[in-house]
Structures are given as C-alpha cells and as structure tokens.
C-alpha cells in the first residue's frame, strides 16, 4: 500500500484516501460534443510513468488535492492543493 502525502494530514495510507483518477479538463457541458464529452469521461493516458492525479482525503481532512505519481515506481512529487 502506497503512502499518499495529504497537504494537511501528511503521508497517509492510500486506503485512507480515494483516488479519483488522472486530472482531465472538463469540457464546457453546454457546448461539448458527445465525443468530446466521452473522451473526458472514459479516455485516459494511463502512462507507465508520471501522471497527475487527484486524491480525496476521505478519512482525514476531506481535501481534494493533486499529486504527480510515477505509476511504474509509485514515486510521488509535486504536492499541490487544488
């Protein structure tokens, strides 16, 4: 189980948090075409390497924050509160 650094609570077991996935910009719902919308819904880069993702500190401070994580090594960097 990896450690995820919450900006408020410090490093916590990933089971204390929820991974809400890669950060994907949300298209304008009023104007987006269906295919643009579905790319936002379902298509992810899923690289074996660095990815920017959002975590939710569900058992702690209830903050959503983003980190950069290397999916191949689970190295974490770039902590930033959203």
């Amino acid at each position: 189980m990896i450690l995820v650094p919450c900006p408020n609570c410090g490093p916590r077991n990933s089971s204390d948090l929820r991974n809400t996935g890669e950060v994907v910009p949300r298209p304008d719902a009023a104007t987006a075409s269906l295919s643009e919308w579905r790319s936002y819904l379902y298509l992810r880069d899923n690289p074996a390497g660095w990815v920017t993702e959002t975590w939710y500190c569900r058992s702690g401070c209830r903050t959503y924050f983003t980190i950069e994580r290397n999916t191949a090594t689970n190295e974490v960097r770039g902590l930033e509160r959203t």
Partner: protein
Amino acid sequence: MSPRRIPSRPGELIDRSTTVSFTWNGRAFTGHQGDTIASALAAAGVEIFSRSMKYHRRRGIFSANHWDPNLSVQVGDEPNVRAGSRRLLEGMQVSAQNVWPSLRFDLGTANQLVGRFLSAGFYYKTFMRPQFLWHSLYQRILRKFAPGGRIHWNTSTHGAYDKRYAHPDVLIAGGGPAGMAAALSAAEAGATVMLVEQEPELGGHLRWGANDDLEVLADLRSAVEASPGIEVLVDSTVSGRYDHNWIAINQRSHPLAPERLIKARAGSLVVAPGLIERPYVFAGNDTPGVMLAGAVRRLTNLWAVRPGDRAVVLTASSEGDSAVADLESAGVEIVEVLDARSGADIVKVDGRGRVRKVHLGDGRTLAADLVVTATGWTAPTSLLNMAGDRPVYDPVAARYFPHALPDNVLATGGITGDGSIAELLAHGRETGELAAARALRIRHDVLTTTARSTSPKGPRPETVPDDRIPLRRVPHPECYRSSTHGLVDFSEDISSKDLMQAASEGFDSIELMKRYTTVTMGPSQGKLETVNAASVLAEARQVDMADVGTTVWRPPFSPISLGALAGRIFEPVRRSALQDWHEANGAVNLLAGQWVRPDRYGDPMAEALNVRNNVGLIDVTPLGKLDLRGPDVPKLLELVYVNRWQKLKVGRVRYGAMVGEDGVVSDDGVTGRLAKDHYLMTTTSSGAGAVWEMLEDWLQTYRSDWEVHVTPVTGGLTSINVAGPRSRDLLERLVGGVDLSADAFPYFSVRTGTVAGVADCIIWRIGFTGELSYELHVPSGHALHVWESLLATGSDLGAAPFGVEAQRILRLEKGHYIVGQDTDGLSKAPTAGLAGLVKLDKEDTVGLPELRAAFDRTDLPVLVGLQPDDPTVVPEEACQIVAGDSNEILGRVTSSRMSPTLGRSICLAQVDPKLAAAGTSVTVKLVDGSRITATVQEHHAHLDPEGERQRV
C-alpha cells in the same frame, strides 16, 4: 521414555525439571518445556513423522526448523503445524497428516508403484478430458490426493485473530547476530526499532554454536533487552514488503490472539534473514535419517537429541565440519567424513524406514543410519525481491547475492556475505546506523513538510554515505546434484528427473517449469528447493546457473493462515438514536449498508395498512442529510440536480434527481429551503457519503469561487416520518409554533418548529408512502423523547411504528422508484421516467451532454408499473420478462410485493420500449421456469396516481 536424549548441553533450550505430556497419533508421550514437537518425539525415538505428498514415502526430520518439509502435523483442530519449530505445550494432541489408514501402514504408498504416471504435468495431462468427468469424478479423486491436515469448520477453539498497525523507524527482519547488532546501533542512533525473528527466540545460528558463540549471544540478548528503543517480536515472520515500506508481519507469539497480522510502515527495512541450508540431490535423499548439517546441530545442541547412531557426513563448508564435532560430542559414531571440497560424493542411500547403506562416489558402500549433508546455502532474498531487487548468482560462492536495493531497504548478515561473528556484528552495526539515519530523515520530512506541521525539533538529519565494508565471499563448491536423481522438492514430491522431463517437454524456462511441475510451490515456498531447481534446469539446458535465473519470490515469505489474514474487521455499524428503542420493542433488524435498522416489528402487511388507515411512524434516520449554507447554494443545486432550483422559495421543498457525468441516475431526494441562505438536502440512505464527496469535489475542485458550506448532519438529526390520514391530527397535539392546516402548510413545504417541547425541529410535508405525511428532523439528543411522545399521544389514533418492509410495500403501491433497485448502473434519466423533471436548457449540469443524448434515444428501457394477471402470484424481484415462449429477454421485474391495500400483486419493471404502452401484455419467467402473463399499467402508481391522498 527418551532413549535418544543425551546429557545436558550448554545451549540447550529444554528445561529438564519440567515434564510436558502430549499425544502422538493417540499414544502418550512426554517432553520438556522448550522442546519442539519434533524434538520431543525424536528424543523418544520416533523416526517417521509424515508421508510424502504424492508417493506417500516415509519421511523423517530433515532440517529441524520452521522450513522442514517433512514435519507438518495436525495439532488438535489446527492443520499444517510446523513441528520443527512449534514449541510443545501440555496436552497437545498431535497426529500425522496425509495418511490413510495410519502413518505406519499407509495405502497411499501404492502410488509409488505407478510413479511413472504421476510424473511432471500428470494432473494437467490426465484430468483434462473428457470435460464432463471433471465434476463427477476427477474433482473427487483429486480431493483425496490433496495433502495437508483437516480443518474443523464448526469447532474452532482458536479465538479471535487480530490486527495491529505499527510505525517503526527501522524494521529488522531476522534476529540473528547481524540483525541484533543492527537493532542495537539503530536504537542508539535514536530510531524506534522493531526486531522480528521467525523462531521463538533471538540468536539465529549463534544458538546452536560453540561456547564463545553462546557468550556473544548472551551479551547481545541482554543489550537488546536493555534497549528501550527496540521492540522484539519472536515467533513472528515478516511475510511481505510492499510499496513505500509497507510491511506485513505474522505474529504467532501474541498472548491472546492465536495469530496477529501486524501492518507496519517502516522508515527503513533491514533484511537479515541469514542463510538457509540447501539439500543435496541424490537417489534416496528423502530417506529418514538423511539430514542437513544444521538439523543435527540443532537437534544435538538445542534439544539434546542424538539424531542417529552411525553417521556419514558429506561436507563442503565449515557448517558440515562443525556438525561432525557436534555429533562426536553427542556420542554418535562417525563412520566417514566425505569432503565435497576435494571431490568426495554420495551417490545413493538405501533404506525405507531409515537409512541403512550409503553408496559413495568412489564405489564404496558404508553401513550407517544417519547421512548428514552440508553442500551449500540458499540466500532467502524474498524481501529483497519484493523491494524490486533481482539477486545475482555468484558461481565462486555458489549462491545468490543482493544486487541493487532502494534507499529504504538494506541487507546485512549472511545474505550479503561470509565472515566471522565479529565481522557479521560489525556489518550489522554499520547497517543499523545507516538504516537509522535514512529513517530519521524520512521521519523529519514527514513531520515538517505538511501544512500543519509543528516546527521541527532540530535540523534535518544529514545524508549518511553508505561506506560499509562489504562482507567477504568465501569460495564454495557448486554442489547441486550427484550422478543420480533424487528429490528437489520434498513438499511436492518432485524429483530432478521430473524437472528434466519438463524441460525436455519444452517447459524450459524457470517460471514455466515451476508452474508445470509445481516445484517450489509447497509449504517451504522454495526456501529449500529454488536453487536446486534452477541448477537442474541449467544442467538440462547445459547453460550457466546465472543464465537460468530464478523464479520471483513473492509474498508471503512463509505461508500465513487465513485467520490471520481475515483478522479483525474494522467496520463500524451505525445506529440511530432510536435503535435501542426499536430493539426493545421487537424490531427485526435489517443491515442496510452501514446501518442497522428495523425491517419490521410484527406483520409488515398490517404495519402498511395501519399507515393507510390511521398513522404510522418510521425511523428514517439513515436518509443522508446535508446542511447547505451560503449565497451560492442555488447554483450548486442547479449543477448537481437535473431539475431547476433557482426559484425555490423559503419554506418550500422540492424533489430532485441526480445523474453522474455519464448520465446514469445516481441519487435522488428532497431538498428544502429553510432560510435565505440555508438549505437541507436529503439523499438516499446508501448514497449519503457519495453525494457529500461529490458536492465537496465540485466546491473544491471546479467551483472554488462559490460560497457554499456543506455539513453532513445525517446522524445529528434523527428523522421520523409520520404518515397516514391521521398524521395531522397527531402532530397538531404536539407541534408548537407551526400552523399545520392544509392552507398554511401545503404539500412540499417546510417549517421549523417545536415538537413535544423540542425546539428547532425541521418538519416537511412529503409523501414517499403516498399518504398525508410529515417528516420530522429532530436533534438526535431529544429524538427518543419525541418518538415516545408521538406514540403515547397518538395511541387513540392508532399510532404505531412501521419498518422498512412496510415502507417498501407502501412506496411500491404508490409507484415511487428506488435508485439502485428500480434503476441500475446503466439506467439513464428517461428510463426512470424523469422526462418531466430534467431541464436540458441549463448552462451547466452534471452529465448534461449525456442527458441530451439519452433523450434523443428511443431504445432505452422504460420503467413501468406492472400487474400480474393472476393477482395471487408475486414474481420474485429480478425475474425476467421474455418474449412469449422464447428466452429472449425484454426486461425484468425490479420490485414486487403483495399489496395489502389492493389485495393483489404489484410490480415495477424495466421493459423494452416496445412493451411500455399501457395495456401491453408481457410474459414473466418465474424462478421455477414457469411463465405468467402480466399487464403494463398506465402509471407507476398502483394506488392513487393523482395524489389525492397526500395533498389533503
């Protein structure tokens, strides 16, 4: 009684002043405190401990420790106990496993006669075809072959297993000399240390060493004991290492729990497991009386047991030389010492129940009852592999060594090289210092880099360079296999011949060979077998050991019981403030998500009718409740609900449905405006957490400029629904400060007032049951008073509680759908009948493009009211709606009940749009396969579709 017990030894673990009684296969035996099961039996002259897995060959002591493949026994109702390390306890009932009818006379030995049919891949080849025999025949046959003890499903006496979480700076796997030295120096450097040893006492190989070893051990033990920074866990195994040094430890030495799984997050991990002796492969190498040098050293020095009378020793290392000395001092006649370093060899051993004759490489034959081999070491690099290392084979030292480790994992002791005790201790100490330095840096970073961190105590620890002097590598001959074939895997009964055959059949990669033959997959988990298997494959392929590689060691380091893995479950159950009352008044409970709540108090049909005729009370506290405050709440509601919210007036409530960004219906509920900037949102009971997290996501991530504050008040407010034609009469007696008349307090309104003297109760008029009803949200501290007052005051009105089952009947009569029951993970808004609610012309709403697309479609299933033509038949929920006599699925029943009000069966169903028109006759296939017809209704509601009853 103990014909093989020898006079006192300086390092013996047994307390000769004690007597421990136990039974072995029903016969009474005694041993001493400190004995293992195996040592007590061996002292009494027992030579056969088990039968082998496939061929049921007699097996005796082989390694006399945790890894001994021949010493799995049943103790009471506990199977697969390792008799080589499990300490003897008074009254133990020990028996042999995998034998029938008895250990002495086992019919399974017949398998030896057909051995050639049980060779590599036998199961795969034999039990493949015909497939129809799999269930009826093959499964039953194979079950008979399954080795291992018996579990007793209903009679466990083991008590509760447990879990623990720990956060040591330094965790040391292995309590031998290097591990103990590392623990001491790490603790001196200021680290908190957890020292984990698999055997029941610290010391590693010092325990069975000579007098000077024992002196060093005594000093180390007292130093460890005196160090407050070291927590010692003996009889505990580090079973796995995962990302970011998440480490699993199986503790068998807890005073209460039979086993405890410790989940530790360590700053740094020091791997110091020592070395494991490698068996030698030759014909008859599993005959009782063939032992590893370590086994005879442990038997003689730890338990004062003479392992045989006449010994032949094959040695390639100092361990074998020491074994010779130990055997001599124990009064064993040394028939011959064969030095493998100068080419001496054993070819074959004869004997069935015990070694009789030994055939040597030079052609001679010797009579002996004990054959001791010391032909090499296996480095148990499991934890290093789990940390990403790929150990490298060194042909000079004839074993594997660590290669490249991450910063937070260090290795010390025999796994890294050879040396005197002093050299091992020095390396351990340096490793402990380094581990502490790295861990203390991590601890400092953890404490100083968070937003709320306190000011650090002192500066960040310096980076300490790794300038440890590596241990030497003593040259060792590569002794793997003699000129004959023998067993490689003792647990799985796999010989070098089987492996050669597998290689010749094409399974010549080590990973493939492992899976094909199951070599290394038994209880020893490859600790004895892996390197020999690789060497046989190297021989078969005629390549170097280094080119064969090894299988990847994965967790667990040693098998772990399912009880320990299951352990204690940390899952709180939520109870409303009224749950005690419910249980005292005959409620039959229901587990709904995290909540326990009354399903019924008596007959749910009667409870439902009482709501239709009089007035009923239900505790609906699990309804998710979110207190929303701030000027931008309407914007938030517009965003997360499919309908409009901007114009909701103070004092009004509105129904809303939510969809996900994918357009699938996700939740629904009622939200009321209590004041200008103050709303109360309710969600489904199961969706409370998810809706809250979703709102927070929007407010934190995408709309952080909105001024909204969300507070969950689900447990803080106890919710009571008062439903039925007499509900107003009842509330008029108890409510203060609110005009309850129909004109002053119309349907879908909210007021705040006093109920039974309790101020600040939120009251809203809604109608899930289809009756005139009021939902009270009462501060939970006063909820019981309000509930009891309602029942007492309303006794003449027929006020009575009703449970979830009655509520389900009532809502189905009224045709209200339940998200997740009548909708599923694919149900879009049109399916749920939300066409009138959804506003597609909003600027933004969750899932808007999918909502638009859904309403363009004509093929989505439609939720309809459905009534079986035979009113007495209630189709079970999830029965399928099919096309006539075929099995073409056209829908399914999502809810069904017998309606006490209508006296007939009623359903909600999702159907194909071509069946959705009112009056359509459909076929429902029942659970028993029979078919009935049912008719689609005009409305979801089976009762009062116009809503006359609830608007009074």
